[in-house]
């Protein structure tokens, strides 16, 4: 037998009150004149033993009444196996295997405790009972005792949030619809405050048993998010930004956070909660790659790791004319090539220089520079039109302007002293403009 309100057993202390009153009652009774005292004395003498026994029994009954009230206040629960059985019952088990149930306290995982209680309850079920199991997914599964025992055995803490209010309401509807005269709802949960949704009175009047592990939930850190920065990497290396969450622990030790990508370990950092860490990792192969950011394990294991995915692309092959690109662009491209971010080559996907000649391979990317000689501007525009490019170089503007490029923060706000205004007669043109100077594309 267990008590749901063990503190109420302190009321047992009141059991000494009747004996104390009995022993120390000092009230002087009122005097009554009575002439037939000899009869009274004779009666008392003869009935003394009976009266004492009656008083003793009365005292015991009073003590027993106090003890019973205290025990009732403690809300005792007797395991079903103690009795000979029970009448057919509709029983809904709400097993909260949400993420928080993976918390470990005193070497025991909360979920294991909850699952043990669930097995205990199911073990006492009889074939005539109607049984349901509601897990963290909120789905009510009906089954026999053996089926639900197997479901409990297969259950694990999941990265889900179970709305306990909704789960209990669902359980109440199932019990009421079952047609059984007796129904019970057993809520097995760590009953976190955030697990309760909107209040629901659906279970009013039904027997609801709530079990939760005795221990308080331990302090927890979690990898709240992990994503590649930027979202697409050029093969070689990249960075992952991980947000670490959890209750701040003053003067608490920092914990290591690591990243792996495609089975290869990456960078490592020490973080406190909450914190954001940027971790470098090598990405040698092109294509989609899965990785994971992991914290040092704590009591709640389920949120100590978070997966991420990144698309890795090979470096673009770039061809440029050194004379047209100029010394600065040439040096920059050389640096990128040495870092493996681009590859120099004639048959490249990207071409830097004047408008491509007619007959260039379709789909090839090109960065077109205006000709150094303004006389060649017309020929360049004709080449663009021949390549199917709707844009053309307009008149040259010699004026100092500020470049507005919201999508290119690297050049946004740069000063421009001379430029060609780009002209595109089509209506879709404004959407493809990356930067403007003086309001012109």
């Amino acid at each position, binding site marked *: 037998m267990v008590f749901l309100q063990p503190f109420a057993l302190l009321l047992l202390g009141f059991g000494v009150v009747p004996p104390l009153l009995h022993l120390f009652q000092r009230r*002087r*009774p*009122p*005097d*009554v*004149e*009575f*002439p*037939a*005292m*000899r*009869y*009274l*004395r*004779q*009666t*008392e003498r*003869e*009935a003394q033993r*009976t*009266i004492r026994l*009656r*008083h003793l029994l009365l005292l015991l009954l009073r003590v027993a009444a106090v003890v019973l009230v205290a025990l009732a206040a403690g809300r005792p629960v007797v395991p079903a196996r103690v009795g000979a059985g029970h009448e057919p019952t509709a029983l809904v088990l709400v097993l909260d295997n949400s993420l928080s149930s993976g918390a470990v306290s005193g070497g025991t995982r909360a979920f294991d405790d909850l699952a043990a209680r669930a097995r205990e309850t199911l073990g006492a079920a009889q074939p005539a009972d109607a049984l349901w199991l509601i897990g963290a997914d909120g789905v009510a599964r009906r089954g026999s005792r053996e089926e639900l025992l197997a479901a409990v055995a297969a259950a694990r803490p999941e990265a889900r949030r179970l709305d306990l209010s909704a789960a209990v309401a669902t359980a109440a509807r199932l019990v009421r619809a079952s047609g059984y005269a007796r129904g019970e709802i057993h809520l097995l949960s760590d009953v976190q405050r955030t697990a309760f949704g909107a209040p629901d009175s659906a279970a009013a009047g039904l027997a609801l048993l709530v079990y939760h592990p005795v221990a308080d939930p331990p302090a927890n850190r979690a990898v709240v998010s992990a994503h590649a920065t930027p979202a697409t990497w050029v093969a070689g290396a990249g960075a992952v930004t991980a947000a670490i969450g959890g209750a701040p622990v003053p003067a608490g030790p920092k914990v290591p956070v690591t990243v792996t990508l495609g089975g290869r370990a990456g960078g490592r950092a020490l973080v406190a909660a909450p914190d954001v860490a940027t971790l470098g990792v090598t990405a040698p192969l092109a294509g989609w790659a899965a990785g994971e950011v992991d914290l040092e394990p704590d009591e709640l294991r389920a949120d100590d790791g978070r997966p991420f995915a990144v698309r890795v692309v090979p470096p673009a092959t770039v061809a440029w004319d050194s004379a047209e690109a100029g010394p600065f662009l040439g040096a920059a491209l050389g640096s990128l090539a040495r870092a493996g971010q681009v590859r120099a080559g004639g048959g490249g996907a990207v071409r830097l220089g004047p408008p491509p000649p007619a007959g260039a391979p379709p789909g090839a990317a090109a960065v077109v520079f205006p000709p150094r000689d303004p006389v060649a501007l017309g020929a360049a525009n004709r080449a663009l039109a021949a390549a199917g490019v709707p844009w053309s170089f307009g008149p040259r503007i010699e004026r100092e302007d500020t470049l507005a490029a919201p999508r290119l923060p690297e050049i946004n706000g740069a000063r421009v002293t001379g430029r060609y205004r780009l002209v595109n007669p089509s209506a879709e043109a404004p959407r493809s403009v990356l930067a403007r100077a003086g309001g012109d594309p």
Partner: protein
Amino acid sequence: MRGDRLDLLDPLEVSALGGIELVAEGVVEGFLSGLHRSPYRGFSVEFAEHRPYQPGDELRYLDWKVVGRRDRLYVKQYEEETNLRATLVLDVSRSMAWSGDREHRLTKFDYATRLAAALALVLLRQRDATGLIGFDDEVRCAIAPRARAGQWHALVRALLELEPRGGTAAEGALSRVTGLLRRRGLVVFISDLLVDRDLVLLALRYLRHRGHQVVVFHLMDPAEADLAAAGQSRFVDPETGDGVVASPRDLRRDYRATVERVVAAWRRSLRSGGIAYHHVSTATPFGHALRRAAAGRARLG
């Protein structure tokens, strides 16, 4: 009819009509008028007259010769004789001045004095010499039996002067009776019998042994026969001042059984000695008690 007869009314109501004298006369008048026959005629051997038979008359007094001659029913009446000396022995101890409900019942003492007065009147009307002894710890008053005129008023005055007090020692009073009744007579002992039982029994048996007819009226208030179901109280003896703490709720049933046992023991002990015993509640109409005494007187002859 019953409404006109004081002997059958509630003692408290009757007592409210006046003093002892008036009440006793009223009770006796009612008592005598209610008799179908006079128990005080017929025990003498001297014939007085004939009178027509009335329903209720004893058949033994029918004059069968007259019936044979006239075909009508006549009964014979005889002259009364004063051949009895009666003494009323009245307990006037402190315990007699008690009533469990003073608003609705007489005290035992008030009941006893009125009963004694009525008895004396009945006896004196049939020319029996009647006397009185009042006692508590000792004899408080003693009036020798006389049948002269004015005896009843003397008895009533003595009753009025008595005041309940002190303890109870009946044996002294009963032995005094022996001195007052020199020849065969009637002793009416009126008491609540809260006395030393063995001594009183001895004294009463001695009186019986001397040839006296003894009638004992055991007066008891209804609240003495059955404890009221009150809470715990300290019961105090009015005669000794001794107290006992008891809870009537716990004792009530056993107490009732004890009282029944005590009454049965008195009845058994007295009757086995040829002594008439009457257990009288103070709620009993006086006429009932008088009738019992009259029956005893008739047996005496």
